[in-house]
C-alpha cells in the first residue's frame, strides 16, 4: 500500500478502516536463502537491501521480541558522518547518503532531519583534533566546517560562554548531520522489505545453529522450530557475544549499558544536535519537543538495560554546564540500551570463521547512524561473499593484525570508547 497525503485523505473518508498492516507478521517457513538474526534497524535494512539491491528475496528476519525492541528503539536518534579514520569515514558517509534518500526509497517518513551536528571544542588541543578530523571529512567529500566562538555566539547565544568552567571556544559542524525518528526507521525498513517478500518473524528467538559435517551453518534452531538457511547473518548488537557463542565463537566485544534521557516536551529551544567537549553530554530536540540527551556509558559490563544514578547526574551536570537555561526543564524518562562495545570502538562486518555465518557487530554507540549503511554493506557481504569497499577495514581479524580503527585512542578497553 502506497503511503502519501492522498492515500491518507482517501483513508480518512472511510475512517481509516482499510489500512493494511505496515508489515506482514510472517510465520517461519522451512527454509530461506538467507536468514538474518535480529529484527532491529540493521537486520531489517540488510533484508531490504538483499531484496532490493541484490535480488535475494527469499529472506527471513528473526526477532526474539518485537521488531525494534533492541537498540534501534533505545538510542538518541543522531545521524552523522563526522569520523576521522580510514574505514569509518567512508562507511559513515555511505550511510549518510542512504539516509538522505531513505524516505523515497522506503515510502515511509522516517523524519530524517538534517539540522546539523555540532561538536564543541574548549581547548586548542581539541580544536586541532577537530581540524584534523574535519579535514579528513573534507578530503573524503563530506561537509565540515570549523567554527570559532564568535560564530557560535551568533548561532547559539544560549551556550554558557561567559561563566563556564571550560569556556566554549568553537566547534566542528556537519550541517548534513541531524536526527531521524528511530522507530520509523525500523518500521520503514520492515514495511519496504515486507512489500518485497521478506518474512519478518517476531517472537522467534534463535537458540542455536544447525551445522553440517564440515561445520558449515545450515540453519538455525529457534523458539519456533528449526529453520534452514543457505546463509545466516547476525545483526544482534547488544547480544552479539551470546549469539556468536552458539557457534562457538568468542568476540572482541563487551556488552555495556548506555543510558539516554528525554525531557518533557517544550517549544523549540535547541536547533540541532550538539556535543559538549568538556563533559559527557549531547543533546537534540525531537520534533515532539522533548530534549533527547545522553552522555557516557555507565562503564561496567551489563545486560540489564538500565543504568545507575551517577551517570544521570554526570550527564545533567554536563547539560547544566553547557546550557544553564535548561535547569528548570524536567527529565521525563531514562532508559538503557546494551551496547556492543568493541575493542577499538569500531564495528565488525565480516565473514565469521564459521562457514555460512556472517557477523555484523560491535557498533558501540555508532549503531543508529550506521543503520542504512550497515544494511547495505552487510547485504553486499552476504550476497557476494565479499566485503563492500567501504566496509573492507571492519574485519574481525584486525585485532590480530594490529590494524585497529581507534578513533578515541583508548585501546583494548571497551568502556573507554
Amino acid at each position, binding site marked *: 500500500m502506497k503511503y*502519501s*497525503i492522498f492515500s*491518507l485523505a482517501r483513508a*480518512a473518508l472511510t475512517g481509516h478502516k482499510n489500512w493494511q498492516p*505496515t508489515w506482514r507478521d510472517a510465520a517461519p517457513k522451512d527454509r530461506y536463502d538467507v536468514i538474518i538474526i535480529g529484527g532491529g534497524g540493521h537486520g531489517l535494512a540488510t533484508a531490504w537491501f538483499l531484496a532490493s539491491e541484490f535480488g535475494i528475496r527469499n529472506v527471513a528476519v528473526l526477532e526474539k521480541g518485537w521488531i525494534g525492541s533492541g537498540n534501534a528503539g533505545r538510542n538518541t536518534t543522531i545521524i552523522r558522518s563526522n569520523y576521522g579514520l*580510514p574505514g569509518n*569515514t567512508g562507511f559513515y558517509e555511505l550511510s549518510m547518503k542512504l539516509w538522505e*534518500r531513505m*524516505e*523515497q526509497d522506503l515510502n*515511509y*517518513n522516517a*523524519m530524517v*532531519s*538534517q539540522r546539523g551536528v555540532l561538536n564543541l571544542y574548549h581547548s586548542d*588541543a581539541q*580544536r*586541532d583534533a*577537530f*581540524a584534523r578530523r574535519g*579535514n*579528513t571529512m*573534507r*578530503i573524503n567529500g563530506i561537509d565540515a566546517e570549523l567554527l570559532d566562538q564568535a560564530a557560535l555566539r551568533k548561532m547559539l547565544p*544560549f551556550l*554558557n560562554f561567559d561563566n*563556564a*568552567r571550560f569556556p566554549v571556544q568553537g566547534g566542528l559542524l556537519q550541517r548534513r548531520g541531524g536526527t531521524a*525518528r528511530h*522507530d520509523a526507521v525500523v518500521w*520503514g525498513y520492515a514495511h519496504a522489505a515486507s512489500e518485497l517478500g521478506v518474512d519478518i518473524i*517476531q517472537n522467534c528467538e534463535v537458540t542455536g545453529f544447525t551445522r553440517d559435517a564440515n561445520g558449515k551453518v545450515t540453519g538455525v534452531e529457534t523458539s519456533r522450530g528449526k529453520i534452514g538457511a543457505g546463509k545466516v547473518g547476525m545483526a544482534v548488537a547488544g547480544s552479539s557475544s551470546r549469539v556468536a557463542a552458539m557457534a562457538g565463537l568468542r568476540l572482541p566485544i563487551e556488552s555495556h549499558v548506555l543510558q539516554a534521557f528525554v*525531557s*518533557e516536551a*517544550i*517549544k*523549540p529551544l535547541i536547533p540541532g544536535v550538539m556535543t559538549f567537549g568538556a563533559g559527557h553530554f549531547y543533546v537534540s530536540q525531537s*520534533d*515532539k519537543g522533548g530534549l533527547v540527551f545522553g552522555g557516557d556509558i555507565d562503564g561496567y559490563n551489563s545486560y540489564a538495560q*538500565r543504568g545507575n*544514578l551517577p551517570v544521570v*547526574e554526570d550527564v*545533567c*551536570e554536563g547539560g*547544566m*554546564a553547557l546550557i544553564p*537555561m535548561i535547569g*528548570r*526543564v524536567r*527529565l*521525563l524518562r*531514562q532508559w538503557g540500551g546494551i551496547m556492543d562495545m568493541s575493542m577499538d570502538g569500531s564495528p565488525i562486518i565480516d565473514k565469521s570463521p564459521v562457514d555460512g555465518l556472517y557477523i555484523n557487530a560491535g557498533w558501540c554507540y555508532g549503531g543508529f547512524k550506521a543503520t542504512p549503511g550497515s544494511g547495505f554493506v552487510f547485504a553486499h557481504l552476504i550476497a557476494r561473499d565479499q566485503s563492500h569497499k567501504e566496509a573492507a577495514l571492519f574485519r574481525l581479524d584486525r585485532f*590480530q*593484525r*594490529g590494524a585497529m580503527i*581507534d578513533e*578515541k*585512542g*583508548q*585501546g583494548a578497553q571497551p568502556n573507554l570508547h
Partner: protein
Amino acid sequence: MRGDQANRLNNGGLIDRSIALNFRFDGKTLFGFKGDTLASALVANGVKLVGRSFKYHRPRGILTAGSEEPNALVELRSGARREPNTKATTAELYEGLEAASQNRWPSLNFDVMSVNQLFAPIFVAGFYYKTFMWPAKFWEAIYEPAIRRAAGLGRAAQVSDPDHYDKVWAHCDVVIAGSGPAGLAAALAAARCGARVILCEEDFVLGGRLLADSGMIDGLPAAEWVARAVAELSAMPDVRIMTRTTLFGVYDGGTYGAIERVNDHLPTPPEHQVRQRLWRIVAKRCVVAAGAIERPIVFAGNDTPGVMMASAMRSYINRYAATPARRIALFTNNEDGWRTAETAIAAGLQVAAVIDARPDVSPAHRSLASKGGFPVLHGAVADVDGGKGGVRKISVSLTGGARAEVEADGLAVSGGWNPAVGLTSYHRGRPKWRDDIAAFVPDGAPPGMVAAGAANGSFGLGACLREGFEAGAAAARDAGRSGNAGSMPVADDEAFSITPLWHVAGKGKAFVDQQHDVTASDVELAQREGFQSVEHLKRYTTLGMATDQGKTSNVAGLAIMAAVSGKSIPETGTTIYRPPYVPVAIGAFAGHHRDENFHATRLTPSHHWAAEQGAIFIDTGLWKRAQWYPRTGEKDWLESVTREVKAVRGGVGFCDVSTLGKIDVHGPDAGAFLDRVYINAFSSLAVGKARYGLMLREDGIVYDDGTTSRLAEDHYFLTTTTAKAGLVMQHLEFCRQVLFPELDVQLTSVSDQWAQFSIAGPRTRDLLKEVVDPAEDLSNEGFPFMGAREVRLRGGLKARLFRISFSGEMAFEISVPARYGEAMARNLMIAGKPFGLTPYGTEALGVMRIEKGHVAGPELNGTTTAGDLGLGKMMSTKKDFIGRVMAGREALVAPNRQVVVGIKPTDKARRLRSGAHIIPKGETPGPDNDQGYVTSVCFSPVLDQWIGLGLVERGRERIGEIVRAHDPLRGEDYDVELCNSVFYDPDGGRQRG
C-alpha cells in the same frame, strides 16, 4: 473571603482562610488561600478551561488532583524562572504566583491552532509517517519547522536558571514512599522497632488519601490519627519526615533517588537556600506506599472541561473546600466512586445522577440516591455535550439499549484504581494482573523493596494500615532492628467491587491519553496496522509518553488493545516502566556542578603568584596553568610567547611544572617493577641519575612518558604527563596488585607534595648558584646531565634537583615541598633579577619542545607506537614488559606507518596549522593519498618561521621532500618540507653543556 472565589465552600477544608494569597492566571488576578494548590484555587474561582491539548488543541480542564495530571499544565513563574509544563494540581499556591496556560495562540479562549481539529480525520496516529515525503527537500525547509512549532507544550526560559540546587546523601534502614495510611503505619512500625526511617511524601501535607477521604482509625477521625502518628514520628531522632519529596527511582544496591522541592512554594528561594535538592538515599529496605491512581473511562467527550476523576472531585471538595461543579453527575464502574456522591451531598451540592456500569448497586447506595433525590442509571456515558465552557449535558446509553440525558456542569468518573506500580517495576519487573480488582499489582520488585496498601492493590483502609504496619515491621527486622512495633492501627475495610469498563464505544473522539490526544480509534488503528505489541502501540500512537507518563492512560490503552486483538489484558502486558516517577528538573540532577563549579579546579603551588604577575591561564584537565605572562605593550599572545622563548634560549627562564604526575616507587623490587612497566630498563639506573622512560599499554600502543630518577637503592621518583597522572597511578597499582603481586614494591602519589619548577637557559647555573647552598657542586662534573639528587638551598631548605631538559637548553628541574612553592617562585625572581630571569608559560614550553622535536599529547594520541614516535630503539629486547608482544603485530610494524617527522612551510612567511593534512605534490586530495597530518605547530623564534611536527606515512624516509599541507577547513593549501623533527641543536650540546 477575599476575591470572587465563587466556588469556595464556606466551611471546611485544610486551607488557612486567614491567609489569602493573590495570584495571576493568564494575566487575570485571582485569590486563593494558603493550603491551596494552583488547581484548587482555580477550581475555587470557577476556572474550568486551563489548557489546550497537544495535537488538536482541544480545550481541557483539570482532570485530577495529583501528580498524574495530564491536562492542567501551565507555565509557572516568568522570566528566567519560567517553568513549562508545571502541573497546577501539585503547584502550591504562594503570594504573587504567576501562571499562564500553554500551547495556545493568541489566547486560551481563542486558539487559532484549534483549527487542527478540522484536520482530525487525517491527523490520526502515525499519519506523519505516511506523508511529508515529497519533495525530499521540503522536510527540513517547510514541514518540519511547522511541526516543531506546533508541537512541544510550554516554553522553557531562555536564560540561565538563576536558582541553586544541591545534592545530598542520606542513609537509613527503611525508606518509605508515601504518607497515606499504609506509609504512616509502616513508618510507625519500623521506627518503633528502632529503625532509622525516612518517610517521603510528595505532597506538602502528610496523610495521602486521608486528606480527602475521611474514615475512622483506632476509633479516631482519620485526621486526628494522622496528627498523632506524625507527632510520634517527629519525636523520634532517627526518623526523617520529608514532605514535598518524591521518591522517583530505585537504583542498584538499595540506592533511591528522591527530589525535594525545598522552596518551590515560595516566590523565590531565600538567600543561601536552594530551590530543589536531589537526595540519594541508601536504604536497606523500602516500603512503597505510594497509593493508587484512579483511572478514567474512555468515552466520547471524556476530555470536556468539567469531566474529572471522582476521587479528585472529592479532594477538591473535602481538602480544599472548592467545588468543581454545582450539579454533579457521577459515572462509575465500582463501589468506591460512590463516595463522590456522598461527598457532594455532604457539601450541599446537587447530584444529577449516578451512572453505574455495574448490574447491581448496593442497598446503601440505593437509599443514598433516594435520599439525595437523584436517579441511578445503569449504563454508561456515551457522549458529553459541552465545549470550552465545560460540561452541559451528558448522554447515557442505558443497559438494554435505551438512552438518557443528564444535565450537569460536572462529571465525576471512576473507572477503578491502578496501584502505582512504577517504583516496583523500575528494575524491569513486570506487574501482574489481578482480576478481582481489575488492575495490575507489583511483581518482581527490586531487592529489598515491598509494596503495601493501595500500591499493592489493597484498597480498604484497614488493609492499608495492616499491610503498611506489617511491611514496616518486617523491613525493620530485615534491617537488623529488633524493637517492638507496638500495636497495629485498626480500621474497617470498605467493600470494593468493580465491573471492568474501559471504553464506551460511540461516535466522537474518546480520549485514552488526553495529553497526547490519543483516542480509542488510534489504538484500534495501531492494531489494524500491525502495531500490536504494547511497546509498538506506545511508540506508534505516543500513548503514555507525555509528561504524565501515562499514569491515567496506559492501562486503558492496553485494555482496548487487548479487546481489539482478542487477547486478555495480562497476555497483552504492560510496557516497561521507566524512572523517574515524576519528571525531575535537570538542574537538580546537576546540583552544585554548574558554571565554574562544573568540575573541581586544581591550582599549582605558584598559582597566586602567577596571577599577581598577570598570567593568562589555560585549562589543562582540571588544572589552571600559566599559559603566558603578557607584558604591557605586547600586541598579542605570540609576541609574549616569543619573548619568553627568546629569554630562555638567550638567558634563563622558569616555569611551574608541578602538574606533572609524581609517584614515589619504593621497595627492594622497585627497579624490577619499573623494568616491567617501561619499555626500557630502570633496574640498571644508577642512584643519583634520571632516565627518560616510555610506557606502553598491553596492546603495544604508547601510553605515557616521563623521566624517572633513582633517589636511593630502593626508591625511585617517577613522573608522568600532566594528562595521565591519575591513570598511570591506577595502571601501576594494577601492575603491582594484580599482575606482579610477587614484587615487593610500594607506590604513593606525591604529585601534591612537591612544587616543581623547570629552570632553563644558558644562565641556569648562574641563577642556581644564587639559590642553592654554595656547598653544592653544580658543575658539569659534579652534577652531570641526567643527574638527580637532593640539595640544600640557601636558608637551609632541602630540595630535589634534576638535571633534565625539555627545552633543549641547559636546564634543571627543582622541587621543593609544596607550601614553599610560592616562596620558591618569589625567591627565584629575586635571585634571577641580575640575569633577566623570565617566567614562562605552557605556550613557550610547547614552542621549545617542538623546536626540540619532543613528542607530547598530540603525538601520544593513543594510536602511535614507540616506532612511530622514533623511539623504537628504546624497546628492550632483554626483558618482558607491558605491551611487548602486541607491539610486534604486523600492522604496527608495517613500513608505511605514519611516523613523527618535522614539517616547515617552504614559504617562511606562511603560518602552519595543526590539523592540516599531508598530500603528495601534484595529486588531487582524496582518501587514497591522505598521508598524514600536522600534529603540533609553533612559531619558532629560533628559526623565525612556523614549524611543526606531523605524523606522515614513511615520514622519516622522506626528509627533504616537498609535500602539500592541505587544509580545506580553513581554505588553505601550501607547500611544506618534511624535515628532521629536531629543529634546534640536534646534537644536544646545549643541554649537556
